[in-house]
């Protein structure tokens, strides 16, 4: 049985913290990372949130590193391209590729922002279940139908995922992925059968909803209230990052 990110969102040390607060911290962190002209702020953000995820939310560090490595590998590639193609006085040059001081700085900034942003997103994704985010989305005034649709989509992701895993193992059992050729045709088959099953599910869903007197409303859960302790810690975090951000901006302009 796979453990999905969603499972961690439901069982972690920060589950009891108000989702609004967690969302606010995540959003603030992303903005701080983008606003910062130097890598210091994004790196500080990443350090704080990673520490919170591992120490407070008790997310296994191996999993967390593995997760961050995925976007980071892309970021590393694009950061090096940016670094090598930026204008400026060349420090080293190999053919058409020149590494300038400005380019190196830009690449570093890009990389650090990615690290900070990734940590912020995982902070939300690993501690806050989607089910609680739906309630916030609605209270923020998003259209009802959009929220309801996303709730149904969320639920059926897992139903279809299970279906897909079953079909895939049935194919693997009969050597469906033994060569590139058969892999391609098996994947095509998997996609088409999933489409048909999704369609059937949709029809059965409609019957099930009608059987329970559907008149256009989906229930939402009450979210946790904000606790003063949590608020204080978040406040300290936001204040220190803001202070750092201001210091960096002033230092840069001075």
């Amino acid at each position: 049985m796979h453990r999905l990110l969603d499972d961690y969102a439901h069982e972690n040390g920060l589950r009891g913290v108000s989702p609004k607060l967690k969302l606010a911290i995540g959003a603030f962190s992303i903005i701080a990372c983008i606003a910062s002209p130097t890598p210091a702020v994004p790196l500080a953000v990443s350090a704080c949130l990673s520490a919170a995820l591992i120490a407070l939310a008790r997310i296994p560090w191996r999993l967390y590193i593995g997760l961050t490595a995925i976007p980071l590998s892309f970021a590393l590639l694009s950061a090096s391209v940016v670094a090598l193609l930026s204008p400026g006085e060349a420090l080293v040059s190999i053919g058409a590729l020149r590494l300038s001081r400005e380019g190196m700085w830009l690449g570093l900034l890009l990389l650090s922002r990615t690290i900070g942003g990734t940590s912020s997103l995982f902070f939300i994704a690993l501690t806050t279940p989607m089910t609680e985010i739906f309630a916030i989305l609605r209270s923020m005034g998003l259209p009802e139908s959009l929220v309801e649709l996303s709730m149904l989509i969320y639920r059926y992701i897992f139903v279809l995922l299970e279906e897909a895993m079953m079909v895939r193992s049935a194919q693997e059992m009969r050597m469906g992925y033994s060569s590139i050729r058969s892999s391609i045709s098996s994947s095509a088959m998997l996609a088409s059968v999933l489409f048909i099953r999704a369609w059937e599910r949709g029809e059965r869903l409609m019957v099930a909803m009608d059987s329970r007197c559907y008149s256009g409303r989906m229930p939402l859960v009450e979210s946790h209230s904000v606790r003063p302790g949590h608020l204080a810690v978040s406040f300290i975090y936001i204040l220190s990052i803001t202070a750092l951000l201001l210091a960096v901006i002033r230092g840069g302009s001075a």
Partner: protein
Amino acid sequence: MSEILGLRDVCYIYGDGHAALRNVTLSIESSSKVALVGPNGAGKSTLLLMLNGTLRPSSGVVLFRGQPMRYDSRSLTDIRKSVGMVFQNSDDQLFAPTVEQDIAFGPLNLGYPGDKIERYVGYALSYVGLEEHRNRPPHHLSGGEKKRVAIAGILVMEPDVLVLDEPTSNLDPATSEEIMEMLDELNLYGKTVVISTHDVELAYRWADEVVLMDGGEVVRTGPPEKVFADPDTLRKARLKLPAVLEIYREMLGRGLLAPVDELPRNIVDLMHLIESAAGISGRKPGRIYICDISGTPPSRIRDILSSGAVSYIGAMGTKAKMVANEELLELDFSYGVVDKCVLKAIAGRSSLIITSGGMVEHAERRIRSYAEEFGIEIEVIILPRAHTSTPVDNINLY
């Protein structure tokens, strides 16, 4: 008894011209337990979908409380509130992101006020024993738990009729029995329960009324011992005899048993027939204690257990099972409790049944009727009464 749901000459023809139901006439009595049995493609599921107005007969009429069903949206809402449908695949039914939201779906759409929804959802959750799973998403639940949530989502609308399509498919035997026991409990409180199944053992033992279907037609209806008495009809419908009946027939054919008027419904009946044929009698039967947990502190249950007066303990009903779980009582029987305790009593061993509310009388009645049938004395001791009246309040059956 009055008819709550009825079908009169109902035909249903699918778009491709295939007839799923042909001239089906059927009457479902209020507060009865009905099992639809038949092979795959017999039309069981189609018939069930007629009962809550999801499908509309091509010809003929469906009656609800004697009135022909109407298919405008207001009438349909009324019918679906009264006739709750539990689908075979729980994943089709559980579409909300969490258990609580899923159960609240029906009441919310019926326009109940917020505090009423909360109260009802809490009640339904505790009834099916899933309070601690309230905030979990359905994909974190086991098959049995999903089925319970599906049932809770229907119960919360307070239906008069529960319709379940293959309620025990994909469930392990113990979970199946627990689900069926829950349906028994609901039936005891007056709900009509209609199920479809291929499981002849289940239908034979559980139902008051069996409807045998084949090829879109109702072949036979009647009490299980009548419908299952004819092996030829069953074979034609691609079903088999329940094991109890098969053993009975075999023993009859070999002259080991004498024919009886009333066929054995379960192992208790069969064992009694065998024992009386073998001439085993005169053994002193064991006692059965029935303990109402709402009136008994758990410490008293422990005292009884440690006194050595009983050899077995079983729990009936959701509430009793929850208490047993909390008190870490190791249950010998968690389903089919009365039957098993009667079997043990006949074998001379005593047992304790923990249960609550109306189930106490139900259990007592069942034991009494077994004792009467077999002409033996089983001493039944009901426990909360024991500490109000001075000596143990024995209810001697004869």
